[in-house]
């Protein structure tokens, strides 16, 4: 399938799940917010230019904001990981961006350990910034740390499930 079409379908699908299904589940605990929409930014092809990456990150964040009615909150966080993604990729893989074809980050192209590290670093970065922004407006430090850890755990779990779902083909091969 064409890379562009595949990404568009994936973006629509994941955003739908994030907005209408996952966050409609009654919260298990006050600390847990099931976020996983930012996986979209992590899954964009390696070859994408940094400018486009920033714009896409900002747009995806804005769409989420639009539905959650938090103007700017998720946009700021997803923009941050869109900015830092190339650095993390360079750190983990000694390969120039132009050398890649249309491959996307997954456990096959990156190797499973670098892939897991890549996901964990950017997930924590996203949550840290998002919850930090919430904390600036109100809240206590304990709340901040607790929410960061609990939400991070749940996000990683959700990303694992999403990964099994979307990257199934590359695994079974």
């Amino acid at each position, binding site marked *: 399938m064409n890379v562009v079409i595949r990404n568009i379908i994936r973006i629509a699908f994941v955003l739908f799940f994030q907005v*209408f299904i996952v*966050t*409609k589940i*009654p*919260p298990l605990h*006050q600390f*847990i*917010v099931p976020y996983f929409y930012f996986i979209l930014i992590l899954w964009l092809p390696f070859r994408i230019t*940094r*400018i486009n990456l*920033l*714009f896409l990150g*900002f747009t995806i*964040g*804005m769409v989420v904001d*639009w*539905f*959650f*009615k*938090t*103007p*700017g*909150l998720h*946009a*700021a966080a997803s*923009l*941050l990981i869109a*900015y830092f993604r190339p650095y993390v990729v360079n750190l983990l893989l000694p390969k120039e961006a132009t050398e890649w074809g249309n491959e996307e980050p997954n456990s096959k192209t990156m190797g499973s350990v670098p892939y897991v590290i890549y996901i964990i670093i950017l997930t924590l970065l996203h949550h840290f910034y998002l919850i930090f*922004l*919430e904390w600036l*407006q*109100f*809240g206590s430090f304990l*709340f901040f740390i607790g929410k960061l850890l609990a939400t991070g755990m749940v996000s990683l779990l959700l990303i694992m499930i999403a990964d099994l779902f979307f990257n199934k083909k590359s695994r079974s091969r």
Partner: protein
Amino acid sequence: MRNVFLFIRRYAVFILFLILQGISLSMLFSSNRFHNTFFGMVSGEVSGDINRRVNNIEEYFTLSVENKRLREQNAFLLSRIPSGVMSPDSLTEMVTDTAYIDSVKQYLQFQYLSAKIISNSVFLQQNYLTLHRGSKQGVESNMAVVGTDGIIGTVVGVSDNMSLVMSLLHKQSKVIALLKKGSGLGEITWDGKNPQYLLLKKIPKTVVVKKGDEVVTSPYSDKFPPGSRIGWIEEVKQDQETNTYILKVKTAVDFSNVQHAFIVKNQLGEEMEAIQSKQIKE
């Protein structure tokens, strides 16, 4: 000049990052003023439309709960119709929802408008609901929203067919509340932690408060009908610094599972506001 362009080219990504980050942060920190415009634009109608379609499906999952709620409310309303009430003296009969012009003629103070809740959140620090009723149906900013179980919030933004409601589960939401058994005027806020509990502050320690006491809206509110249920006291804590309690209140409304609401229009609201602002000016 050449150096400037070189600089911009070299750091284009970083500059773009800063600009976009600036846009999102300024939106975030000015969201109070921003909300009405953010929502009032076409975006409110578009996301509202998508929300409505999804909600049509979602509604089936809560039909039985909603049914039970309606039956209970029906039973409550049936027990209040005049044929079931005997008043010992026609002169002392009181109907709480009505304001008197003179002793004979009366008119409705609070007008209820039924609305469907099409989107809702409880997990954020600032939670909003979207209702499928807007300015075309007569909704205005600053109207109260109540559910069948208790109060839900206040309208903060209106577009043609949708309206945005600041839920009680919002850091900036403030409602004046009263203990149902009498004295004790306080303020309901939310600490952003658990969507099942609200905080009731500013009640002086001279008032006797017990676990299980019902908290209702006060008659001094300019939008909520007096005596609407807010919740029940769950935990009584003494504030060390002031002479007041910090009370934890269990919400009457299950915010994660509300489907229908009533928008309340106070017919005397404008008049009350006018006279209050006049006094402040003087």
